[in-house]
């Protein structure tokens, strides 16, 4: 992990000096993670792909503004977060990102058998803020402090979002966790 980080730092330094191939390698390393984060956040494959494109373009254009190359992952996901929320606000400006999950299906205990589908469905029911908190914490492995920087909010808010999301997911996924017998 440390070796990889050092390599990323080298690539960033080279890309800053105009080595386009170094940036190519950097993109190839991070595109899958960024794409999946965006896909789970916005829900549409084409949107996620377009956003990923924009994220890496903006990252390249602003690479010199990155103070500490070691913070590249958080910085990159901050760009991704901003791009995603820009799109989400355009798509549903009145929704204010605090929509509570719809419990219609979960309360009936009717879930797809396959766990992955159930998880995808459960994540889709979360509000954008809660879903993003889970994506950054569980799927991208960021620390609360890093998430606070990405999301531009206090650590306490990040913590609260992750915990609330876990409570909601725990309820929604309960039938899956117990083998769908409840």
């Amino acid at each position, binding site marked *: 992990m440390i070796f990889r980080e050092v390599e990323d730092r080298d690539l960033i330094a080279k890309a800053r000096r*105009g080595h*386009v*191939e170094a*940036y*190519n390698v950097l*993109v*190839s390393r991070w*595109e*899958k*993670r960024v*794409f*999946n984060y965006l*896909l789970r956040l916005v829900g549409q*494959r084409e949107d996620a*792909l377009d956003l*990923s*494109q924009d994220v*890496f*373009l903006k990252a*390249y254009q602003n690479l010199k503004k990155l103070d500490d190359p070691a913070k590249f992952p958080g910085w990159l996901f901050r760009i991704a977060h901003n791009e995603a929320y820009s799109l989400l606000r355009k798509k549903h400006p009145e929704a204010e990102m605090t929509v509570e999950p719809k419990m219609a299906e979960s309360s009936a205990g009717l879930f797809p058998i396959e*766990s*992955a589908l*159930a*998880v*995808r469905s459960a*994540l889709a029911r979360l509000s954008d803020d809660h879903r993003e908190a*889970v994506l950054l*914490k*569980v*799927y991208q492995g960021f*620390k*609360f402090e890093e998430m606070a920087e990405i999301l531009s909010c206090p650590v306490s808010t990040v913590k609260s979002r*992750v*915990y609330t999301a*876990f409570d909601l*997911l*725990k309820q929604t*996924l*309960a039938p*899956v*966790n117990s083998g769908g017998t409840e």
Partner: protein
Amino acid sequence: MNCSSDLDLKAYVVGEVTRQEKGLVEDHVRGCQSCREELDRLNLTRSALATLEDEEIPRRIAFVSDRVFEPRWWQTMWRSGPAMGFASAVLLAGAILVHGFEARPVSVDAAQIEKQVESQVNAKVQAAVTEAQAKQSAEFAKVVSASERQRQADLATFQQAAEYYQKQMARIEVASNGAYGQ
């Protein structure tokens, strides 16, 4: 959950605890059924989330060798020394030109200044014309005077010549009369 313990089970599940806190949680759940069940539910939720695998990106992100990543015209120029020098010269010339155009309407007193300058010029021209006329008149008077003097001199010479001829004629006449009279 019936336990009144303030141990943070969610922090344990998402990996936000120190080694010491981890030990405390593990010790506690061994003796607390309520917390153990809650921890099991959280772990199951965490495990369920892990079943959702990353998708492969449908197509690769456009790399820096692609058009969208090509440096813009000003970036290319910035990196080129001679081009930058030429651009600086053009910019400077443009600034001078703009200043020239901008400076004129800025001054409100320009019309007054123009009027003053015009009146000064007119006065100078008038003075010069007057002086030239006076000089010309003086020259003319001088020439007339000289001409008059010459005329008078010529007249005197003519009179002398006329008198001389008259005298000569008189002499000739006398001599002639004397010769024929004999």
